[in-house]
């Protein structure tokens, strides 16, 4: 009996340990390491500016979309965030929506977070609709797969404004409009900054973002095309995904320097991976920013500080402060103005010339 008990207990222990292990592994996978260095005061300048509204067509009006008229100050607005607020971009984005909702004085703002799970984003949106949300701002996790949520919103005639990532659907029927950066343009500007930093020669490694979304694809294509067009002396020697995370960026960079010691430049598709690469280069005894030039995209406070410190050469901004523009777009829409299907914001660029001065307006 006692042996049987002991074995049972051992099996229970083993099973629990196994479960815990998977849990820890999953947690480690999810947690995008962020040492929280940057306090996100969404109000300190850096407001979004519209660069261009898509010119074609006459835009989307209330009648065309078939939505009822609404006074925003008397409305329940829902915001569906895609990823955990564990990196500066998401922190600043959510904060900006919250701040502006308060400023506009909406009756109630519902905030959900899909924690990188698409099924959760769909249920989040449906939950908010069930709670009576009358206008939805959605930061889509993925370009495809939100159809059931969009249909649920359409069935209740609730307009959906998507921000930062585009979805593969029809503007003004499946969703109202898209508000965000031109990621191809960001990639091109990063290539220009890279040429400026390196003088147009060298071997570049690219730290790619997560696969399966248009941000990665666009930032890669823009960079590769522009580099091929303007700097024939630059060669791309490696492309590997760092999944937009600092620890992954560091790990990939460590492997790359040992396998390709001749790398002279790194293009990181977000700041977190660039900061990981800085650590990896330092560990390997190289001087980031000098021996190996680094250009990245996002414009977080930590990365711009790294420009000031000399370890990153240039950063192209991707402005996450969608609140003011999102609510302004909503107000325009309800005031009867036609809303363009894609509203592209202009992003700033940081290098050693302006980093110190602009540091206070970063996020």
């Amino acid at each position, binding site marked *: 009996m006692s042996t049987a008990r002991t*074995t049972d207990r051992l099996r229970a222990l083993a099973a629990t340990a196994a479960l815990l292990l998977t849990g820890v592994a999953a947690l480690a996978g999810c947690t995008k390491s962020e040492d929280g260095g940057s306090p996100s005061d969404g109000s300190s300048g850096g407001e979004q500016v519209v660069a261009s509204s898509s010119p074609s067509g006459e835009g989307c009006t209330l009648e065309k979309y078939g939505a009822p008229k609404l006074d925003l100050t008397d409305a329940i607005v829902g915001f569906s*965030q895609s990823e955990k*607020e564990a990196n500066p971009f998401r922190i600043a984005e959510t904060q900006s929506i919250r701040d502006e909702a308060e400023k506009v004085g909406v009756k109630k703002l519902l905030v959900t977070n899909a924690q990188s799970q698409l099924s959760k984003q769909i249920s*989040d949106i*449906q939950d908010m609709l069930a*709670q009576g949300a009358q206008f939805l701002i959605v930061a889509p996790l993925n370009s*495809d797969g939100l159809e059931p949520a969009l249909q649920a919103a359409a069935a209740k005639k609730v307009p959906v404004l998507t921000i930062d990532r585009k979805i593969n659907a029809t503007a003004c029927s499946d969703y109202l409009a898209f508000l965000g950066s031109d990621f191809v343009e960001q990639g091109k500007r990063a290539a220009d900054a890279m040429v400026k930093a390196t003088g147009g020669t060298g071997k570049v490694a690219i730290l790619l973002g997560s*696969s399966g979304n248009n941000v990665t694809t666009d930032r890669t294509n823009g960079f590769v095309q522009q580099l091929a067009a303007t700097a024939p002396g630059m060669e791309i020697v490696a492309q590997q995904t760092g999944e937009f995370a600092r620890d992954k960026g560091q790990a990939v960079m460590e492997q790359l320097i040992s396998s390709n010691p001749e790398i002279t430049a790194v293009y990181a598709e977000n700041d977190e991976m660039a900061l990981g690469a800085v650590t990896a280069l330092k560990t390997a005894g190289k001087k980031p920013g000098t021996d190996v030039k680094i250009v990245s995209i996002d414009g977080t406070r930590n990365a711009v500080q790294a420009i000031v410190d000399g370890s990153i050469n240039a950063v192209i901004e991707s402005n996450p402060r969608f609140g003011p523009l999102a609510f302004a777009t909503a107000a325009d829409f309800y005031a009867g103005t036609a809303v363009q299907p894609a509203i592209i914001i202009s992003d700033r660029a940081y290098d050693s010339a302006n980093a110190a001065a602009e540091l206070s307006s970063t996020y």
Partner: protein
Amino acid sequence: MITDSVAVPTTVRPGRATRAERLASLSQRHGALTMLALALIAASVTFESFATAENLAGIAIQSSFVAVIALGMTFVIIGGGIDLSVGAVFALAGVLAAFGSRWGPVTALLLPLGAGALIGLVQGVLIARTGMAPFIVTLAGLLAARGLMLALTTEGAETPLVPRGSGFLGLGRGVFLGLGVPVWIAIVLCGLGAVLLRRTRYGQFLFAVGGNEDAAGLMGVPVTRVKVVTYALSGLLAALAGMLNAARLGSGVTILGVGMELDVIAAVVIGGTLLVGGAGAVGGTVCGVLILGVIQNVVNQIGTLTSSVQSVVSGAFLVVAVVAQTYLSRAGRAR
């Protein structure tokens, strides 16, 4: 290795269970049911938009996919195993279903189901024949299924779409008597699963294998066959859930299913199925799945929490649910 027949649980002979044992097994299921009822009542009282038909139908459809997978996982865990591959199979099946739908609904059905059953079958054979740990074999299965899915979609960059107007979409989006088709499918399957577990020889064998494999083998239970069938069933059900989900989304989304196996295992355990095998019930699992669904919904009902606080709140609710459930089960077992 250990052939101690004393450890054979009484569930091997359900006909001769004593009253106290029946009570224990009842409360094991009803612990989860009680928790679910409490959660539903508390949420209805606190949030006026909770107990609406729309919201409850939403929870039902969100839970239906997890429930179908958790059904297979219940079998696997009762049999003393674990299946970590279900989330990856779920995602792979969705991609295959959307991919296959271009040739019509029949391919959209058969392609993912075949692949899921095959993956489960191979895992089952490896576990049963070679004696390798289910944890490792199905972890390998997870990596293989996810790798295959990424290979099919060029590293996840391409999302196969279900053609608009395809009859296949009805499987995921159709509504019958106020509930989505996937909900009805989950209800029917769980009903069948409960019968399979309680009223058939296979079910009895499964409890015996999970209780004490060696003893079961000595008693003439076809251990290998039971295990192979169980893992094949788990793979099939995970694939079915993935396929239904693809029909709902209208596309084979590549980022699905990551970490889903943990939610599923959690639901099964909350439902009172013992992680060491040999005891468990489908009804409890359904309650476990719904408890998780309600917790997620309640976090959204609060509506103003930041993501980190949301995680903390979900975790806290989960702990309360598990502690209460365990306590209720113990109280039942204490004669």
